[in-house]
Every structure is written in C-alpha cells, then in structure tokens.
C-alpha cells in the first residue's frame, strides 16, 4: 500500500472514529469530574469523594445493587434457555420456516416502551386478564387467589414483570446467536452418530451442546451486560423497587443531584467492566475444560 493510499484510508476512517472516541472520552471524563463535585448547590467542593462516601453509606444503593445482581443472575441464564428453545425450534427444515422465523423476530422490532405497556395492560390491577385468570373468573381455570394480586406492590413480582418484559423483548437476539452456532455444526457428525445408534437425546448431549458452548458463552456475556444496563422495564414496571439504572434516574430527575447520579453511573460502568471481564475468564476456562472432556 502506497503512502497516499494509506493516508486516504485514514481519512476515510477518521471522522467516524474521531466522533466515537472523542464522544466516549468526553463522556468518561465528564462522568468522573461531575461525580467529584459534592455539596449543596452553589457551595460545591471539588474534588471530593463525598458522593461516593454517601453512596456507600446509603441503604438505597445497596438495595439497588442487590436487586440488579438478582436481575442479572436470574435473567442471564433465563435468556439463554429461552433463546436456546427458540433456536432449536426453528433450526430444521419445515414449510413456513421463513415465516415462523420472521414472527420470532417480532419482539425485537417493537420499542421497549411498548412492550412495557403491553405487560402493564395484561397485568393491570385490580382487573386485568391475568388477575381475571388467577381469580378463576374465566370459568375453565381454577381459582388460585381470592383477591386481585397487586403486582406492583411486591418486590419479587414487580421485578419479575420487568424481567418478563426484558426476556420477551430480547429473545430474538439470543436466538440468532445460537442459530448461528447451530448452523456451524456439521450434519455429518449427526449422521455418524445415528449410524452408531445414538438416540436424539445423546446426539443433543454429546454433539450439539459441546459445540454450542462458544455461542452460549457469547449469549451469556452479552445478555449479562444488557441485564446490568437495564433501565426501561424496571423504570416502568417496578418504580418502587429501583435497580441501579432507575436509581441513577431518580438521583438526576427527582433528587436533582447530577453529581450523585454521575457517581452512580460511574460505579455501574466499572461494575459492568469488571463482571464482564470475570465472566469472560470463567467461560474461557470452562470452554477449554469442556473441549478436553
């Protein structure tokens, strides 16, 4: 490549990367500087670790951290299972396969806000379809509760609804990654296994699962990042039980404390970076050991 050629290429690359790198550089820089501002309006001290000290002493922060962790720990494997189920369903030839796949992609096309509205309609209080069903008002279903369930007043139920929304909307993503993984397993291996008399379950256990490990690892890493980042579903469906994302919004819009919000934001970023790194390590370790076995 000649020098002029090289220069030309850098010029083509420059605008996009300049935009992204400066923006994120500035974002990170400002996040740090704003978070070091502490004190009553007009009399702030800089630099101060006051926001962080206050955060560590605040029960709300620890409660939010605990809820977010539960959200990640339950949500990530759940999304893997749902995605795997969908991927296995459409990973075979059948008539209308294209149409079924297109329908499976629908949830991701719809705005999250709309998904949250659908859930709040289905689970409305006191009278909605789910409450009607649980109260045995439809006739064919047994009466399970005597009074309408108030989904939004209970922490596990409200966060469960948020998780339901998140899982429902994002299942096509996990499905696509796993489908790509399934597609890379050669048909010959299954044929060989069948000639040797392997059952479907054995084929799944000894051929599909081991070779799907890299795709599953991708899903776990990407979905856990998204679960840490989650804001919109807990914001709409579990407003009384903030996770870290909603806590940031609360600090910014309700308490009107941008500097405290920035400190929370930075903690969240660091948390994601660290846990993703650790998860990556663990998965890589498991991968090498599973391949050996």
């Amino acid at each position: 490549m000649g020098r002029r050629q090289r220069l030309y290429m850098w010029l083509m690359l420059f605008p996009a990367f300049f935009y992204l790198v400066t923006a994120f550089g500035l974002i990170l820089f400002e996040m740090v500087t704003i978070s070091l501002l502490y004190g009553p309006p007009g009399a702030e001290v800089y630099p101060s670790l006051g926001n962080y000290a206050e955060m560590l002493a605040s029960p709300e922060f620890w409660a939010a951290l605990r809820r977010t962790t539960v959200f990640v720990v339950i949500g990530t494997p759940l999304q893997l299972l749902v995605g795997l189920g969908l991927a296995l369903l459409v990973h075979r030839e059948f008539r209308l396969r294209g149409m079924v796949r297109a329908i499976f992609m629908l949830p991701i096309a719809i705005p999250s806000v709309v998904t949250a509205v659908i859930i709040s309609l289905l689970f409305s209080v006191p009278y909605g379809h789910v409450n009607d069903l649980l109260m045995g008002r439809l006739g064919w279903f047994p009466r399970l509760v005597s009074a309408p369930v108030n989904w939004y007043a209970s922490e596990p139920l409200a966060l469960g609804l948020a998780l339901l929304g998140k899982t429902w909307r994002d299942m096509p993503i996990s499905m696509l990654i796993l489908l790509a993984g399934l597609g890379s397993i050669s048909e010959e291996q299954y044929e060989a296994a069948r000639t040797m008399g392997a059952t479907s379950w054995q084929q799944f256990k000894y051929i599909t699962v081991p070779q799907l490990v890299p795709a599953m690892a991708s899903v776990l890493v990407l979905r856990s990042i998204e679960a840490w980042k989650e804001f919109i579903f807990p914001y709409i469906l579990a407003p009384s039980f903030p996770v870290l994302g909603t806590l940031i919004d609360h600090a910014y819009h309700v308490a009107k404390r941008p500097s405290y919000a920035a400190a929370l934001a930075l903690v969240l970023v660091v948390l994601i970076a660290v846990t993703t790194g650790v998860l990556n390590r663990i998965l890589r370790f498991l991968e090498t050991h599973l391949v050996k076995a």
Partner: protein
Amino acid sequence: MKRIRLGWVLGLLAALFLILFPLYILFKYSIADRASIVTGGRYPEPLWPFHPTFEMYRYLVSRGDFWAAGVTSVRIALYTVALSLTLGAPAAYALARYRFAGYGVLIFTLLSLRLFPDIATVIPVVERFYKPPLSALPVEVQVALAHTLLSLPYVIFMSIGVFQGIPRDLEEQAAILGCSRLYTFTRILLPVAAPGLAAGAIYTFLLSWNEFIFAYYLTFTNPEGATLPVYLLRVMAWTPQKNLLAALAVVISVPVILFSFLVQKYMQAGLTAGAVK
C-alpha cells in the same frame, strides 16, 4: 422419532402463542370500547371487545401534540440516518479493503463502547448539552447526535460486509480510466453498495425511532421535543386509560414492524455483531 415430532409441534405452537398473544392483546385494547375496559369487577375483561371501535385512533389523530411527536420522531430518525451513514460508510469501506495493524483494536473499540449503559452515558451527555455552546443546537439535532453514538458501531459493522462483497476490480478499472479516489467512492462504489447500505439505514432508523433514554433526558425540560416513545410515557403518566395507551402503542409499533420485515436478513447481522465468528 414420532414423540420428538409431537414435542416439537407443541413447542412451536407454544412459542408462537407466547409471541403473538401479547401483540393481539395490545391490538384488542386499542379497539376496545369503554364497557370492555371498565368492568368494575362484575365480569371478566373480554378477549374481543363488546363493541370494537376506532374511537381512540380518531382521538389521537385529532391531537396536535401527537402529530408533533410523530414529526419529531421522524426528523430525529432521519438526521441520525444521515449522520450515521456519512460517518460510517467511508469508515466501513476502509475497514473492508485494508487490513492493517490497528484493525483488531478498532473493532474492539467499536464493541467495547456497548459496555457503557445508556442510562450512565446520558448523564454527562445531558450536562454537556445543557451548557453553551452545545445548548444552542436544536433539541432534535442533540438527540440525533446522541443516537448516532449508538447506531454508528452497528452501521460500520453492517457495511463492512457490504463493501467486502464488491469486487476490487471495480475500483481498479476506475483507477485505470483515471477516476480520482473520491470520485470512485462517491460515484461508483456508493451506488453499488446502496442496497446493502439501505439495510443499515433502516436499522438505524428503527434504533432511533425506538430509543427512549436519550430522547427522554434531552427533551425533559422541553416537552415540544418529545419523540413518540417519550410521548407514550407522558400519556401513561397522565391517564391510565387502557384503550388510549394501546392505540398509541400500536401506532408507534406498526411502522417498525413493517420495516423490520424488510430488513430481517440484515438486522441479524446488526444484532449479532461481534457475537458470531
């Protein structure tokens, strides 16, 4: 073998139900009459309204703020598309044609940006945009600039494949005929790449149309600038009326559902960017 087949059919039906039923319910509420949503607990809510009506749709189109939000959404999405393609297409071309030492680093940078939660990045972004000189920008441009941060990595990823699919001969021939590099790129390569780039454009449009956090924060103090998802949330805070909320939600979703059918194949590339080797 028979048992597996039956299990598969049941699983498929269950999955289709799980996806389509909530969408059906949304549509049902959007055409529900009052008696179907205000039951007072005397009877269960019907699965099909007693008297289906398009009243709520008519009410929506009669509201000025609904149209304003729609226009804002379209404008922001178009600005985002224009900006993302202008910046993204040349970068994707360079990455597609020339493998250099920094290639891996660049790709890694693109991907690791997705580690930042939007709800965290939005705080410094809003603080910046509230102060001069950026506060002078129209709010629609501000939101589009923020949306470009989200879409640009995807646009670059999706377009790399498009340019890799174009034979190098094309540029070599153009060079022999004496075209300048810029001319070759804008007049020869871009038209050939256009159909593939269109998929990236539609993906970007959908991303911007659906995006909530940045639109919400940047238009918080300026209700005029609300996009449709932000408008939906405002309506939600103001009325619990199920049929109105549902009608608005349907109106927001229909264009994206139609669009997404068009770009299915390409969306796949965007959604799984970096996850599949």
